[in-house]
């Protein structure tokens, strides 16, 4: 297998160029997919026979929850790559992805709470999924806080990488223990997100939304990473000419 692309990833300039080419595609894909998913899910999908129209919150709750979990795994993978291959770009990805993941967890929690009101009759229920999401949010806060607390850029990235890897090993344990705790303390309640068999016209918009959210994440991550690369390489000549080109276009 040809590994040159992998080593090229270590070059900030190469990354800046290639990501600039991808960014518009990802951005448009995210916009189109999310718009289509929103209209489809809000207006065209049939209503749930038990929950009525409140079930439509699923079209943002589930994609954001998916994304929140996979972003944390991505943090750990980026951390591992940064630790093993000493790749600076992985450090950038780790630190730029963490806030997006935290925001996604916030969306999942808020929509879960709003969904809980008509379904369970209260804004917050210590449901296993919601509780695991809350813990995930705390894990994100830990990574972000550690990154901000350490002033040295490289050690901050490495420390965050170790924490993310420890967190990822713990996530399945936390998830199972919370589920166990939940079944222990309250008899199996009606689960919002567990539908035995969803008809096609219900899960197809969901799939579109999930894809849209992933594209959205990729686009925002690239945006943030490009800015960080410019900041880190601000002394390099290619960055200077890039900044000059970008600011002259504005004037």
């Amino acid at each position, binding site marked *: 297998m040809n590994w040159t692309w992998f080593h090229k990833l270590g070059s900030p300039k190469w990354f800046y160029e290639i990501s600039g080419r991808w960014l518009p595609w990802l951005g448009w894909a995210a916009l189109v997919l999310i718009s289509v998913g929103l209209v489809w899910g809000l207006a065209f999908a049939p209503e749930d026979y038990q929950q009525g129209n409140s079930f439509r919150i699923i079209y943002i709750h589930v994609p954001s929850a998916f994304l929140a979990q996979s972003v944390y795994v991505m943090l750990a993978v980026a951390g591992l790559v940064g630790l093993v291959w000493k790749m600076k770009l992985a450090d950038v990805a780790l630190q730029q992805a963490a806030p997006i993941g935290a925001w996604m967890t916030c969306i999942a929690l808020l929509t879960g709470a709003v969904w809980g009101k008509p379904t369970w009759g209260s804004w917050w229920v210590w449901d296993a999924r919601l509780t695991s999401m809350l813990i995930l949010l705390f894990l994100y806060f830990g990574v972000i806080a550690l990154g901000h607390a350490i002033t040295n850029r490289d050690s901050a990235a490495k420390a965050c990488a170790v924490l993310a890897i420890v967190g990822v090993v713990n996530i399945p344990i936390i998830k199972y223990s919370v589920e166990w705790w939940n079944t222990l303390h309250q008899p199996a309640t009606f689960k919002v997100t567990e539908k035995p068999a969803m008809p096609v016209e219900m899960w197809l918009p969901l799939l579109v939304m999930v894809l849209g959210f992933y594209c*959205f994440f990729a686009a*925002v991550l690239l945006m943030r990473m490009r800015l960080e690369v410019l900041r880190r390489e601000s002394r390099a000549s290619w960055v200077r000419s890039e900044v000059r080109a970008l600011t002259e276009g504005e004037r």
Partner: protein
Amino acid sequence: MNFSSFSEFMAMGQHGLYVWSAYGISIAVLLLNVGLPWLAKRRYLQDEARRMRREEKR
């Protein structure tokens, strides 16, 4: 189309408040996620351009 009129669409069968507030919050957060890096980039470019102009004058 699952709804017969626009007002029915807005009402969401008595769950309108919940559905629309959940969607509103989420879209606001998504826009925030795009807007903040965009603003940061603009500020960075302005600062950087000013710095370069200062260095050129010297």
